[in-house]
């Protein structure tokens, strides 16, 4: 039902509360900043399956399903 709108913007949205940064090796570090009235921040590592390396965190899809479970 949603639509993705792609626009280049000069500035940055001021309302960010979640930031995800790539790490060397393909993992991703994601931080959930607290919204008003919440505690936090909370930090998570996600990763992707790899033929020779153990994963340092679950795939991002699994993190989403974990949120669904909760």
């Amino acid at each position: 039902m949603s639509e993705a709108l792609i626009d280049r913007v000069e500035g940055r949205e001021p309302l960010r509360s979640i930031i995800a940064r790539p790490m060397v090796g393909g993992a991703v570090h994601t931080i959930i900043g607290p919204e008003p009235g919440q505690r936090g921040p909370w930090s998570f590592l996600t990763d992707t399956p790899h033929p020779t390396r153990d994963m340092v965190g679950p795939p991002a899809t699994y993190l989403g399903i974990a949120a669904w479970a909760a």
Partner: protein
Amino acid sequence: MVTVVGVASRGQIPLQDIRVDFQVEPVAGADAHGFGVRKTVTLYGALSATEQRRLQRAAEYCPVGQLFTKGALTVEDQVACDAEPAMPEVMASATAMPQLSLPTLPTCAPGAVHGRYLVETKEYDDRGVLHQEGEVKVYMTCANLTRTGRWTLLAGHSSEGWMPPPVPLAYAALAASTVTTLQACIAPEVWTPAGLHVEIAPYSAGNRDQAQTSAAAGTLNARRVVRTVVLHSATSPVPAQTIEAALQQDPLSTSFRQGGAVLDEQIVMA
């Protein structure tokens, strides 16, 4: 899970415990998100048929479940650049880009996600009314070619706030999935780990009581976020078309936009 607990408490339904289990499977096909889930919700307690139906509906319409099953999220995408002088070059590069052929994303690895409600973490106010639904311990296991990965996390609602609520956790997964997809789609010679990050800024979609009311009634509670891909480097511009095409391929973005992630679901009474 915490939504069902909240709905049960508000409706004075004698739910004693709840478990949720997901089997995660790769799903191929042009219309697929790359994955699907088989979901089992187990309800504990002496529940009437009416009470079972109410909780089943609440489980189907929990806020995060609506993202996966109903496509209840609208994503407004933006691309920003920290390096102002690079912007005209980036735009020129994007304009000159031919039709893109992005790499096929890796198939989702099979695995499972198990949610276990920590009943003792419920919190009541002075009048005995449920104040915080409590914590859920989530176990995740995912196949890998070296060895199977296993992880545990907490999510839910508590006064102490040791764990994130489910909806922000789902948004975090969306941000992480976006970065993973961009990593896979952007050419290695352009890509550097410090080259970009992704921000999610949610619009308010009401409070927890409203979400539980919506879940109990079985009504859609649409949500909206702004997702910003922030480019850091002025020397390795990434064409806007590449980013746009990658965002369209991202499995969680597609799932939250289209719904339909459930392959099979069942409610078990115990």
